[in-house]
């Protein structure tokens, strides 16, 4: 049966025109099952996912088991491939942020930051980013790191039956997302960090809301340690599971909490600082067990370090109220000169008055900058930053035009899933879920 003949969504007898692409037939899966039928031994071949509650989205795992022991496991990805990198080549540099933010949707601000830092390097304006913009970026990224770690801990806990960790994790995350909504207008998919700075300054009530949020987190973050750290069931499921040592991390390109759980204090915020991280006081958390429990503890403690940075950033932002949040170059800065007008729309009344009433050249420039955007000098840049999962980086190539010639996102989860076999083979089937949860892949970022 070829793909051309078989359309699952057609009525019986209905003719199918053209090629039908479907993963349901699962070419390679049919092969695996066929081989298995011929083999006639006791090996179980299990297809886990892509629709499975504990595969963090649409991850597919092809597992071979001897009893309950995993003898072979192969991850299959691509079910959430949306062609974001291709699409970015057809949109302006500014519009690129609205695409990258949808990659790893649990930590969208890191995608935006990596992309914008790369574009800024190509533009040669890295030194011209206002201090307040960098402080806002750091603040938003660190809050986003806490939110992402809460999801990692919460969903990881839920998968082993610790449901309370999930419910309280999402409660705290929702408080953070409320703050994001107040600042950017959206809970997720912000497109807030732009080449040159950030789209908007904090709202008037921003600092007060931030203080409330910090108090809330300080009150509730200790609950996770109290619930989990010495919980015998939790430890029984996590300790010694998903073991991956430092050499394997290097070989397979694994970074972030997984790398730090081997005891190696590699954190790009310290090693290759960006956005002014060198001016903040925080520690790099490590653990020495190289297992799922170690990663949990690293994430738990990293939330406290992030909170430390958030507090420092809050003080700085309070002091710098009113300073610019966008680079002083109107070509790049547009459309950051927005204001909420009486009609609820985002156009700045002053700006509209200027282009419509005063200056025809300004109108032309406005029109061209809106429809085409700014140009970026030819060349390529690769900027890595430390996301909650590990090294996220953007490789952008410009041919001097108004659109990215090529944009590639190096997502940490893409690399981390390569290490599923080394962590799971030889272990129990039930521990696969724990190991994957400790890697914290987000398929939106993995598949892009």
């Amino acid at each position, binding site marked *: 049966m070829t793909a051309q003949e078989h359309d699952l969504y057609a009525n019986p007898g209905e003719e199918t025109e053209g090629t039908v692409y479907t993963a349901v037939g699962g070419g390679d899966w049919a092969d695996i099952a066929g081989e298995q039928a011929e083999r006639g031994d006791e090996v179980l071949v299990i297809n886990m996912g892509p629709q499975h509650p504990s595969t963090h989205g649409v991850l597919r795992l092809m597992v071979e088991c001897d009893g309950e022991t995993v003898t072979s496991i192969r991850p299959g990805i*691509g079910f959430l491939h949306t062609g974001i990198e291709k699409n970015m080549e057809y949109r302006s540099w500014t519009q690129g942020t609205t695409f990258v933010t949808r990659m790893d949707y649990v930590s969208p601000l890191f995608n935006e930051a990596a992309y914008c830092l790369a574009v800024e390097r190509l533009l040669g304006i890295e030194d011209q980013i206002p201090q307040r913009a960098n402080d806002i970026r750091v603040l938003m990224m660190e809050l986003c790191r806490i939110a992402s770690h809460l999801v990692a801990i919460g969903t990881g806990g839920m998968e082993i039956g610790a449901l309370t960790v999930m419910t309280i994790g999402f409660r705290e995350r929702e408080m953070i997302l409320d703050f994001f909504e107040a600042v950017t207008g959206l809970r997720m998919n912000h497109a807030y960090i732009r080449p040159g700075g950030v789209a908007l300054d904090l709202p008037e009530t921003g600092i007060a809301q931030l203080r409330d949020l910090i108090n809330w987190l300080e009150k509730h973050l200790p609950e996770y340690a109290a619930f989990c750290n010495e919980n015998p069931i939790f430890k029984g499921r996590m300790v010694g599971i998903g073991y991956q040592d430092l050499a394997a991390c290097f070989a397979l390109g694994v970074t972030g909490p997984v790398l730090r759980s081997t005891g190696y204090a590699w954190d790009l915020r310290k090693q290759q600082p960006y956005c002014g991280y060198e001016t903040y006081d925080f520690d790099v958390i490590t653990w020495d067990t190289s297992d799922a429990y170690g990663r949990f503890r690293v994430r738990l403690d990293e939330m406290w370090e992030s909170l430390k940075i958030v507090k420092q950033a809050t003080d700085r932002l309070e002091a710098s109220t009113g300073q610019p949040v966008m680079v002083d170059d109107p070509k790049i800065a547009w459309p950051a000169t927005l204001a909420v007008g009486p009609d609820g729309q985002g156009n700045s009344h002053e700006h509209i008055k200027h282009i419509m009433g005063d200056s025809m050249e300004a109108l032309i420039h406005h029109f061209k900058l809106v429809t085409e955007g700014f140009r970026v000098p030819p060349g390529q840049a690769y900027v890595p930053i430390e996301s909650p999962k590990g090294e996220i980086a953007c490789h952008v190539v410009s041919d001097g035009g108004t659109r990215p010639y090529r944009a590639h996102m190096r997502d940490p989860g893409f690399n981390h899933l*390569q290490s599923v076999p080394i962590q799971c083979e030889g272990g129990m089937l039930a521990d696969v879920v724990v190991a994957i949860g400790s890697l914290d892949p987000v398929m939106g970022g993995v598949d892009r």
Partner: protein
Amino acid sequence: MSQDKLPGEEKTVDKPVTDPEASPKAGVEREDAQPNPTPLVPAEPKGVPLRAGMWSQGTGDTSGYSRIVRTTGWPAPSEPPYGSWYDDAYSRLLSLVEGLRIAVILDRGELTFRVPREQLTEVMRSLRDDALLRFEFCASVSGVHYPDDAGAELHSVYHLQSMTHNRRLRVETSCPDADPHIPSVVATYPAADWHERETWDMFGIVFDGHPHLTRILMPDDWAGHPQRKDYPLGGIPIEYKGTTVPPVDARRSYR
């Protein structure tokens, strides 16, 4: 080596390695390594067409700046000295790889080594194994398609990280569209496995020696390589119950 040592124990080091003699001798460090040979530079990268006026090529220019003509080119290969650690890494690599043809592009603080594909395997192995280079971490591999770069249309770009020295380096190699083969670096950097599969999937570069070069993001039976410049956005007409939706770029004009 005494008998009571465990296998691999003699390799253990407990202090930073700075001695040039500490480099592995077998395979990489040869007797005939030349101290400072003159490199043979591969062909220069393609240029970018002249751009006229204030705005993009081909758009009606009403701004009055249409007589402005600018030559924007790709960053040109740099000449030594490069400064910082770049010179040391460059001359060290030259002494390790015999007859190395290399172009060095130092642009925006990022160092790029352009090497021909025939020497890629040896270059990558030297970069990883030598104590003075020690790029032990391959973060990413990404393809780029330059249809105008005759004879080198498809580029493969490797982003290396030395955690020992805290340095970053980009290695770039290319192959013609007619012969899209580049040796795989999976044997040196296992992390490149999925990255090379993605680059094959998206650009059609065949990585020779890859253990399992199959599509990774697109369906197994997909035809074509979507991120090549000649592959349209939207790509295929989507057929659903007898109605065909044309590709996106056939519906709207983006150019």
